[in-house]
């Protein structure tokens, strides 16, 4: 049992504030006991020589160490300047009221801790308590920005502010997946996930500090090149051409994917990661929309073919730019609505969060693909042979789509119709657990962060998946339906990491693949389990 840590300990210099020892992590059942003594592989000294690594066993951002005392002090001043701005309407009208309410009313009852999968799976490490980082920010704010704060801090909770505090706080803000499960259980309504989100914003918007996967290679690249994948419009068109051909080869169904159709009813926005990593998802959408006779289009305009909006995790400015860009493209295409493909954070970013950003002609209706697909599947427009999906299926609920948007039942009604062996995870729906890849973690893998994700933040979801299929024989292929690109990425990685394909015959994919797999007029299956087709043609 490691010693307990208090918020004030964040300021005390040490090489590693929180270390995971063998046996600390929550145990996994057979045949995964060999992972119960696992720890995070040490960071290679030559790679982390000049960056801050003193929080724990991993690094998400890789903040360069200040070269001098003066630089340290300047960074502390910059941090305080950013903190002040979080509480000004000119700078933070976007979240000012939620932030103030959560900062001022926490009763420190720790109810949130029991709801947090990272805290639980880490072996209940104090730094992973949802209120830990919130309390650090609260203490800094009260002490350094409120009148008389240095005196009242002795009574209300003290903390020193130095470079160590700041560097660790920045890193710590990337140990929470922003799943907001903690916020649903808070009896008062305090949202520690939100405070974490605001910490990330402070670092990005004032100090230019953010993981490169989210900023440089993420939102910046998306605005500059067109996609966080690096694909420009030409490359994306090539890839889609390839998908069209592949779909015909795989399913025997010829599909034409429309581009830039002015006046189409629907602009379909995919996470461009699907195009590269899960092309069958993009193809399956096209098959369903075409078979149902929908009027729809993709956009080949820069940013218009990538639904991702990483800003929603760390930077309001980047978030606003991408959201405006998406809707402006839809406006110029004169579509009736934007349909969000299988990408949870893009759902929330454009449909809910941006709802209080978009005005006038930019406020184009946005709809979840779960809803569009439910209408198609349940309306009788397509014929299904559900027996083709005669394998165990469970559903992962993407936090952003379910807990943050209340889109719970459409995907379930579809599965009940087309997947006869569908079963729920426990708990599920709005009480679900995050895949562990939330808030950008699925795409962050620098240093040894992917190891941390697989071992700690994805662990609860892995346990849930195993439990959902525990009554099935090992040799039967099992399908985890995850209608979200980032969740799929995290589930793919956990299956690889724990060798779960070999040990449990676990497979994963989206919802549309299951729909197409059950369509009566498909000549061949779209879902394969390794080399094996899911049904014989």
């Amino acid at each position, binding site marked *: 049992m490691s010693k*307990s840590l208090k918020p004030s300990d964040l300021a005390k210099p040490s090489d590693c504030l929180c270390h995971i020892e063998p046996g600390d992590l929550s145990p996994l059942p057979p045949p995964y006991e060999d992972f119960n003594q696992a720890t995070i592989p040490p960071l290679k000294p030559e790679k982390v020589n000049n960056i801050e690594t003193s929080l724990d066993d991993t690094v998400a951002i890789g903040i360069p160490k200040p070269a001098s005392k003066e630089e340290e002090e300047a960074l502390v001043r*910059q941090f305080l*300047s950013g903190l002040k*701005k979080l509480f000004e*309407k*000119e*700078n933070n*009208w976007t*979240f*000012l*009221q*939620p932030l103030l*309410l959560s900062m001022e*009313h926490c*009763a*420190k*009852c*720790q*109810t949130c*801790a*029991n709801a947090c999968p990272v805290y639980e799976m880490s072996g209940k490490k104090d730094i992973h308590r949802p*209120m830990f980082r919130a309390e650090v920010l609260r203490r800094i704010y009260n002490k350094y920005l409120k009148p008389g704060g240095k005196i009242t801090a002795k*009574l*209300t*909770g003290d903390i020193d502010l130095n470079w160590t505090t700041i560097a660790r706080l920045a890193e710590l803000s990337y140990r929470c997946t922003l799943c907001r499960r903690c916020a*649903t*259980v808070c*009896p*008062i*309504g305090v*949202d520690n996930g939100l405070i974490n989100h605001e910490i990330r914003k402070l670092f*990005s*918007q004032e100090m*230019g500090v953010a993981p490169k996967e989210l900023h440089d290679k993420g939102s*910046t690249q998306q*605005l*500059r090149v067109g996609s966080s994948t690096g694909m420009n419009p030409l490359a994306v068109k090539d890839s889609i051409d390839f998908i069209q051909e592949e779909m015909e080869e795989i399913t025997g169904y010829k599909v034409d994917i429309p581009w830039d159709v002015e006046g189409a009813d629907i602009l379909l926005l995919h996470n461009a990661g699907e195009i590269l990593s899960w092309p069958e998802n993009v193809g399956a959408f096209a098959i369903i929309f075409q078979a149902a006779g929908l009027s729809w289009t993709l956009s080949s305009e820069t940013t218009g073919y990538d639904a991702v909006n990483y800003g929603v995790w760390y930077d309001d*400015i*980047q978030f*606003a730019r991408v*959201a405006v860009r998406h809707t402006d493209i839809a406006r110029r295409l004169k579509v009736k*609505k934007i349909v969000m493909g299988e990408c949870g954070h893009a759902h929330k970013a454009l449909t809910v969060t*941006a*709802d*209080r*950003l*978009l*005005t006038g002609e930019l*406020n184009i209706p946005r*709809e*979840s693909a779960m*809803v569009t697909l439910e209408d198609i599947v349940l309306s009788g427009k397509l014929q299904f042979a559900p027996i083709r999906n005669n394998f165990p299926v469970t559903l992962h609920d993407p936090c952003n789509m379910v*807990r*943050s*948007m*209340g*889109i*719970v*039942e459409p995907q379930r009604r579809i599965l009940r119709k087309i997947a006869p062996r569908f079963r729920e995870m426990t708990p599920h729906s*709005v009480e679900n657990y995050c895949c562990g890849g939330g808030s950008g973690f699925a795409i962050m893998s620098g240093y040894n962060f992917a190891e941390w994700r697989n071992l700690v933040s994805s662990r609860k979801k892995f346990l849930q998946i195993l439990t959902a299929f525990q009554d099935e024989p090992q040799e039967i292929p099992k399908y985890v339906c995850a209608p979200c690109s980032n969740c799929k990425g995290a589930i793919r990685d956990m299956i690889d990491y724990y060798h779960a394909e070999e040990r449990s015959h676990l497979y994963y994919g989206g919802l549309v693949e299951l729909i197409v797999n059950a369509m009566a007029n498909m000549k061949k299956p779209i879902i394969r389990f390794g080399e094996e087709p899911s049904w014989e043609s």
Partner: protein
Amino acid sequence: MGFYVLSYICVAVFILATGYRVYRQITLPVHVRWEIYPVQHETGAKVAYGGSYLEELNWWEKKYESSLFNELKYMAPEIFFLRGLWKENRSLWRVSFPFHFGLYLMIATFGLLLLHACFILWRFPAFAAGSTIRTLLDGLIIFTGWIGLILGNIGSLGVLYKRRIDPELRDYSSFADYFNVGFIFLFFLSALVACLLGDPVLEGAKAYVLGLLTGGHSLNPYVPGQSVPGKVAIVSASLLTAYIPLTHMSHMYMKYFLYHDVKWDDAPNRRGGSIEAAILKNLELKPTWKAKHVEADGRKTWGDIASSAPKEMK
């Protein structure tokens, strides 16, 4: 008279501080949506599983509806019985429930005492000595007062004890956290002792509240603060009234905003509506964030920045 002056000042502080808190909330700019489901004012079956109107095809063509009944059905047990804590943190509920319910009963007792005082001042005919209404009200005051004091004492002692012995709570508790609960305990204890030692039917409390409404000129010859515990109870209750809105304990009523303005704020932005007007105002604000990619120069508005690509991207 000194007691009354103290009470008046404390009530004034309460009104001002609470007024300020509420005023600040209602004048803050409209923020982006950040609701979390289940949203308890959802209609129909959706509320049971946490669904939203976003599950409807072409949801924007339909009227936005919310159910006050569903909301109250959730909020009543949440407010009175701390339903969320019961579900998620049972061991804390065991001490937190009596603590909070004791406070609620004290507030209810104060309300009944005010009613009692008003009836006397108005010389309400049906409130004559020995009348059914008066007997009923007297009985209610004794009932809520005693139950509240007993629960409050058990609860505040329990909360103090739990905060002290449970490492999860202890490691995050500051002096102020203990002081707050200790302060409340002081009131509960002194009031209970005052009742036990010579005022089991709360005559002193009735007289004091009557005096509050008459500027100390009580029609009742009872003189408040006759006993030391009685004096302590009056002083601590008055000071608590002023103190609570200055601390995080204001969550008792600020919870309304946490729920209604954030957790359940799912109202869609319609073209030409009031939310859109508020957003347009927000987009005129001029940020000063310093990171390069923001490109805020103090002149550009949020609207300008959101619709531009920064230089590093061009």
